[in-house]
C-alpha cells in the first residue's frame, strides 16, 4: 500500500488551522483572556488605592502580573480537551516530529490568548496612570514576553494534563519559571523611565524568547509523551 504522506509543514499548518478554528468556534477563547486581564488589573485600584499617584507607582508591575495570570488561566485550554478526547494520542502517533506539532499549538494559542492582551495593554496602562513615556516600552516588552509565558506554560500544562486538578499545580510550575521574564519586563518599564536604554532590555527579552522558542517545545513534547503514557 503506497503512503502518500504530507510534509511536516502541511501537518503543521493543519494543526495550526485546527486550533484556530476551535478557538473561533468557542469565540470566548479570544475575548476572555483580555477580559480577564482587564478585570484583574482593575482589582488593584479597588483593592489597593484609586489615587493616580499611588497607582502609577505600581502600574507596570500590576500590568505584568495581570498579563502573567491571564496567560496562566488561558493555558488550561492548550492540551486539556485534546487529552480528554484522545486527539493528543493521535498527535503523538503522527509520523511528524512532535516538536513542530507542539509549536503549532503554542503559536495558535498565543495568537488567540496572548496577542489580544498585548494589544489592549496600553488602554489599561492609561487607566492605571502609567507614566507617559513608558507606553511603547510596555507594549514592546509584553510583545516579546507573553509568548515566553505561553511557551513555558505549555510545559507546565503538558506535565499536568493527565491530573485531576491541574489549575494550581500548573501555577506552581509555571509561575516560578516565568519570574525572569517578569523581572526583565518590569525592569524595562521602570528603568527606561529613569533614562536607561530600551534596546538592552529588548535584546535580553528577545534572547529569552528565542531560547524558549527552541527549547520549550522540546520539553513540552517530552512532557506530553510522559503524560499520555
Amino acid at each position, binding site marked *: 500500500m503506497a503512503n502518500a504522506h504530507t510534509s511536516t509543514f502541511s501537518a503543521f499548518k493543519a494543526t495550526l488551522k485546527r486550533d484556530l478554528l476551535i478557538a473561533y468556534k468557542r*469565540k*470566548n477563547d479570544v475575548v476572555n483572556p483580555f*477580559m480577564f486581564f482587564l478585570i484583574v488589573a482593575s482589582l488593584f485600584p*479597588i483593592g489597593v488605592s*484609586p489615587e*493616580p499617584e499611588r497607582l502609577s507607582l505600581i502600574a507596570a508591575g500590576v500590568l505584568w502580573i495581570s498579563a502573567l495570570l491571564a496567560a496562566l488561566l488561558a493555558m488550561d485550554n492548550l492540551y486539556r480537551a485534546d487529552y480528554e478526547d484522545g486527539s493528543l494520542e493521535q498527535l503523538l502517533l503522527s509520523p511528524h516530529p512532535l516538536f513542530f506539532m507542539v509549536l503549532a499549538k503554542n503559536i495558535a494559542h498565543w495568537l488567540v490568548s496572548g496577542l489580544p492582551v498585548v494589544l489592549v495593554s496600553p488602554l489599561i496602562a492609561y487607566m492605571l496612570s502609567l507614566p507617559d513615556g513608558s507606553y511603547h516600552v510596555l507594549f514592546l516588552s509584553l510583545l516579546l514576553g507573553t509568548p515566553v509565558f505561553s511557551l513555558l506554560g505549555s510545559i507546565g500544562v503538558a506535565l499536568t494534563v493527565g491530573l485531576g486538578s491541574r489549575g494550581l499545580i500548573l501555577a506552581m510550575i509555571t509561575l516560578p519559571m516565568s519570574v525572569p521574564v517578569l523581572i526583565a519586563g518590569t525592569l524595562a518599564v521602570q528603568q527606561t523611565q529613569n533614562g536607561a536604554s530600551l534596546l538592552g532590555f529588548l535584546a535580553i527579552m528577545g534572547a529569552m524568547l528565542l531560547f524558549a522558542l527552541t527549547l520549550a517545545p522540546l520539553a513540552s513534547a517530552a512532557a506530553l509523551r510522559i503524560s499520555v503514557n
Partner: protein
Amino acid sequence: MWTWFHKLGSPKWFYDISGRWLPWLVACMAVCLVVGVIWSLLFVPQDYQQGLTNRIFYVHVPVASISLAFFPLMAIAGTVSLVWKMKLADVVVKVAAPLGAWFTALALASGSIWGIDTWGTFWVWDARLTSLLLQFFLLIGMISLRSALEDTDAAAKACALLSIVGTINMVVIKYSVLWWDVLHQPPTNFTVDNSQPNGPEIWIPLVIMFLGVYLFFVISLILSVRNEILRRERRAQWVSELAAQ
C-alpha cells in the same frame, strides 16, 4: 388577564404588534433626536460651559441612565422566563445583554471623552465609573456564557439565573463601591454640574434628548427581539409565509 399574558408570550403576536408600532416609534425618535441635537448644539447658551465637547452632556446623561436599567430589566425578564417559561422573556434576556454592553460601553466612552476635557484624563477610579465598569464586565461574562452554552434551552436558564444573581450583586456592588469611594478619597469634581444653575434653557433640551435616547433604546430592543424571534422560529409556518412575501 391570562389570555393577554399568554398572547404576550407568543413570539408571533409580538412580532405582529411590534411591526405595527415600529414606524410610529421611529418617527417620534427621529423628531426628538433632531430637535434635541440641534437645540443642544446650537441654542443652549455657551457661557456656562467651555467648548463644544461639553455638549456631550446631552448624550452622556441619557445613555448612562439607560445603561443602569439593563440589569433590572434582565432580572425581571429572567424571572419571567424561569418561572413561567415564557419564550419571549428569554429572547429579551438574550438580546438585552449585548445591547446593555453596547449602551454601557457608550456611557463609558461618552463619559471618557467628556472627562478628557473636564478632568484632563479619561479615567478616574470613582464610584460611579468603577461600578459601571464592573457592570460592563458582568455583561461580557454573560454574553460569553451564552455563547459558550450551545444548547439554547440550557443557555436560557443559565443566563436567566445569572441575570438574577447579577442584579442582586450589582446592588451590593453599587453600595460597596460608593462606600469605598467615600472612605477613600475626596469627592471628585463629578458633582461640578449639579451646582450649575439649571435653568429651563438647559433642562428642556435635556428632556427632549432623554426622550429621544429612550426611544432609541426601546426601538433597538424591539428590533433585536424581532430578529431573534425570526431566527428561533425560522422553521415555523408563519415565518416561511413571511419570507415568501
